[in-house]
């Protein structure tokens, strides 16, 4: 099992949970399982073509998965996945 760290902008789609534990042998599997548990995350993580959005970075432990094997990066028990979206600043509400 892998722990996925959910950043605060996306916690509204995970029932306010800051971490979600998912099964999966690869990063891709784990993210699929994550979206399976929390379907509202789909459009925030993936574009219409099913590709991870460019402003959402995924780290395995402290390494950017783009510099590993991307979605095929293997996971071992105890690994942590972090989703790190870009943030610009704290503003008011509309």
């Amino acid at each position: 099992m892998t722990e996925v760290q959910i950043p605060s902008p996306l916690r509204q789609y995970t029932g306010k949970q800051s971490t979600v534990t998912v099964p999966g042998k690869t990063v891709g599997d784990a993210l699929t399982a994550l979206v399976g548990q929390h379907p509202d995350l789909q459009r925030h993580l993936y574009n219409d073509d099913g590709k991870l959005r460019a402003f959402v970075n995924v780290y395995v432990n402290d390494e950017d998965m783009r510099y590993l094997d991307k979605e095929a990066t293997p996971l071992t028990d105890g690994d942590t996945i972090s989703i790190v979206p870009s943030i610009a600043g704290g503003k008011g509400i509309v």
Partner: protein
Amino acid sequence: MPTLTPPLPALSNDEILRYSRHLIMPEVGMDGQRKLKAARVLCIGAGGLGSPLALYLTAAGVGTLGLVDFDVVDYTNLQRQILHTTADVGRKKLDSAAEKLKAINPFLNLRTFETRLTSANALDLFRDFDVVADGTDNFPTRYLVNDACVLTGKPNVYGSIFRFEGQASVFATEDGPCYRCLYPEPPPPGLVPSCAEGGVLGILPGLVGVIQATETIKLILGQGDSLAGRLLLVDALGMKFRELKLRKNPDCPVCGKNPTITQLIDYEEFCGIRGQEATAPAAGSASSATTPAGAASPQPDVPSISVDELKKKLDANEDVFILDVREPHEYQICNLNGHLIPLNDLPRRLSELDPTREIVAHCKMGGRSAKAVKFLLDSGFKNVHSLTGGVAAWADKIDPKMPKY
């Protein structure tokens, strides 16, 4: 960091006394303090991040500090922008900042630029400085600052905040990654998670801005391990500091081997927000309360009603169902006695609404209620309107006793 070329300026006896606690540390010493005096730091924004940045850099003895801002202090700034006081509300942030900074350190050479940072002025501005500290609050300016730093060879001391979380790094050093290596593209405006859940814990820009000030000073001194190549994540709620590895992307469009961006571009267009807002987002002011978060997100064109029309209907006892699509914590601040269903919950709580009644949906400013009305129309509702300007307009025009937030 471009090396500060000797001869470094001398320190007066008054300066030596002032910087005593620096001078007795070998990591700073006389040479380090003279480097600080020689240094020119440009701070983009005199808001949440810019406040601690400017205050500490000034106190520490940075010789020349540039401040870029065109905003005016308002009450909602005071919860975090510690350069400004209650008495400054209505003043230009630069005037307020200048007064505080000169009071802290009269040796400071302060250069203020009352302008928004644009593709037309950024390169010329940056050339006169050694380090740029990015205290902005919007994506177009983030990319503009980054690209201008890469193109002028100035390190970009980066900090960013959202609610309880912050990020900090140092971009665009000689061999280090830039902001585009980390995030090649900004989020599309519709997905910027800010509408119903913006806000920022007041101390957070303090935490992150002080990290930026620390990195700036280390760059000037040439001491320690800079955050270049690392992204520091600050979680104030969990009080956890984590760090991720950043790599220079060889295919980066601006700092890669074969760059495709060799001059500054139109950053609002790049961020997809051109033309969606009457007043273009403030590429430049860090703190502008003038560009509310959701302003950049596309607003559907839906039937609307003004606060005056709604008041008339209510006074005439017409059967109007008021639907409040804000969050419960906002409802507690002020409300119109409406039925509360937060926008995100609307799809699964549709059964609470009577399609035969006239429904007026409202939020704080009108952004979320427009989305709610679009959704209701798509769901088969016929008689629904979005309250233009939301409770903010109601407080302005109808009920002056209602608190604004």
